[in-house]
């Protein structure tokens, strides 16, 4: 077990390093002139040249990358010689637009993204796994066919369409829920948990509709497969109660692919639900990334992309470790 964790952590560090290097390369070498982008629309050639020095782009590429990585571990000075300012740890550069520390921008956006992710996650896991299990237990019945049909429609619903439709119906027409506000980003705020739920309920539903559809499919397929296996027959033959067979033996073995998906999706969602945040104007990581991308604010988009990839990779490792805990058939050597 210990060696397994060590080995996975080792490859994790390597992968994270590779991801950071590739993202950095794409963003630094990608645009024809990041300095011009930083400088803005009406910029004289001299000012562009100054901006290039200020951004450290007169340095060799590898030096720039090393500087960037150094900022992850300690504060560093940033800017042109003579006009340097302190970029406090963790330093991810400064925004081209506001000159604010990118880490601060990310820190401000994270609570919104967490709020979006956690409720959607709970909603779609319960509905997806529950309905998938129900369909598997009633395989071939009208209930099963209805659930499978609904899942097919669910995966085909684009978030912009469902999101705008939900806003139109529940907020604009029925007045059941308020338009989302920036003031609430935690259930423990002064407005209380009720306002938090009301604020994020529609984004949660929009995300859950799309995600639960694929959870239904995966849960159903795997449970049907598991229920057909020998150890289930043995458990039944031993005279165990159907409920025990279904949950203690069946679900524990058949749920592992769902855990994989869940881990990956949590990782993905923590990087920002780009579309949903945009539609409901929730200023999380995805929303921030869209606006930075459109306005050419490279340090911000780069840092968020890197962070999002980190979340996915870490989630992957956590999933591997969780396997052993859930499925008794998996033994790590």
């Amino acid at each position, binding site marked *: 077990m210990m060696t397994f964790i060590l080995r996975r952590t080792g490859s994790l560090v390597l*992968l994270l390093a*590779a*991801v950071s290097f*590739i993202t950095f390369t*794409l*963003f630094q070498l*990608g*645009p*024809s002139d990041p300095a011009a*982008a930083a400088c803005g629309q009406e910029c004289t050639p001299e000012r562009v040249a100054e901006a290039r020095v200020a951004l450290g782009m007169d340095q060799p590429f590898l030096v720039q990358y090393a500087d960037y990585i150094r900022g992850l571990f300690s504060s560093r000075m940033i800017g042109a010689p003579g006009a340097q300012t302190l970029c406090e740890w963790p330093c991810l550069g400064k925004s081209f637009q506001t000159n604010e520390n990118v880490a601060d921008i990310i820190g401000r956006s994270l609570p919104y993204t967490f709020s979006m992710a956690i409720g959607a996650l709970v909603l779609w896991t319960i509905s997806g796994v529950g309905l998938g299990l129900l369909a598997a237990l009633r*395989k071939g019945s009208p209930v099963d066919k209805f659930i*499978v049909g609904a899942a*097919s*429609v669910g*995966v*085909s*619903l*684009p*978030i*912009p*369409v469902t999101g*705008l*439709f939900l*806003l*139109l119906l529940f907020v*604009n027409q029925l007045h059941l829920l308020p338009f989302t506000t920036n003031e609430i980003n935690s259930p423990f705020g002064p407005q209380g948990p009720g306002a938090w739920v009301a604020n994020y309920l529609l984004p949660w539903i929009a995300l859950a509709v799309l995600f639960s559809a694929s959870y239904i*499919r995966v849960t*159903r*397929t795997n449970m*049907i*497969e598991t229920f057909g296996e020998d150890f289930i027959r043995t458990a039944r033959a031993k005279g165990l109660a159907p409920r025990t067979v279904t949950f203690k033996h069946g679900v524990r073995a058949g749920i592992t692919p769902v855990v994989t998906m869940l881990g990956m999706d949590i990782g*993905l969602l923590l*990087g*920002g639900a*780009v*579309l949903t945040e*945009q*539609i409901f104007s929730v200023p999380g990581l*995805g929303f921030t*990334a*869209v606006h*930075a*991308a*459109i306005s*050419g604010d490279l340090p911000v*988009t*780069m840092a*968020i*992309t890197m962070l*999002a*990839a980190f979340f*996915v*990779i870490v989630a*992957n490792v956590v999933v591997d470790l969780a396997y052993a805990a859930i499925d008794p058939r998996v033994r790590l050597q």
Partner: protein
Amino acid sequence: MTQIQSVEPSIGSPPLPPATSPEAKAPAEARSLLATAWMRIRRSKIALLSLCVVVAILLFAILAPVLSAMSGNDPYTSNTSPEVLDDFQTPGLPLPGYMYPSAQHWLGVEPGLGRDLFARLAYGGQVSLTIALLSTVVSVVLGTVLGAAAGYFGGKTDAIISRIMDLFLAFPHLLLVLSLTPILQSRLRDTPLGEGSFLPMASLVIILGFFGWAYLARIVRGQVLSLREREFVEAARSFGASHLSILFRQIIPNVMGVVLVYATMLIPTNISAEAALSFLGVGVKDPTPSWGQMLNAAQSGNWYLSDPWFLAVPGVMLIVTVLAFNLLGDAVRDALDPKASRH
């Protein structure tokens, strides 16, 4: 049903000539892949229906110039006259006779600019579907060739390609695609691809195609790992066939079934991706229509709250298209890849 079945022999494969020579064998097998798929799809009502819907949508997009000429409109001309758009109550909102379908404007007009929605939907379909299909082609070619090369050559080639696949799968696609599209556009602006409305289309095809190949490559690699040990590959090798010839003549034709399945599933993903990016404002931009751009137009300025029809037109079209392609994809998978079927 019976009618379709009686027509079938002319659509399906004609009686095959007896396979006397190896040359006659190859085309027969290539045909039998599609013929098998068609035979099985024909049996399912849902699959047939989705196939018909897909064909209808493709025709709708291809015939956009003809259809909008028939309706007497084009996607770019604004009709902002006071008879069409409201000047007083909600400025820019179409008057009741023009908000919804009418003889003059088959799907009504846009609020604000007063352009014909039917023409924009049809021309937008051309743009959206072209982007989705071309980017799928790019992904499929990259995924098949790289996946097959990784599986066939093994060793270092496999290690390198597989690590690249892992990296591509680790990146959050939408975020990366979103932030790289403006960068790519600034790079393409001075090239022949950077002409006017062509630029966003070309950049979306490149970006979506480039980020969509890894999953398919992994599947192809797995298939090729077992294929390369088979007797017919051994035979080709003993005849002195080169690696490239074995790869393209023996290996890749044998994974076409899987490739076809994943290509059909990639198309709806790319349609949604185009819609998402254009909706976010980094893809196709006004005045060029696409289904995503139309969603963007419906959200901007909150028009959809006072004119829900404006959201419904591209929204329903998008849902129907993605659903039809998804169901067709399921059917193709069930037909060609019985192991992956959903019981």
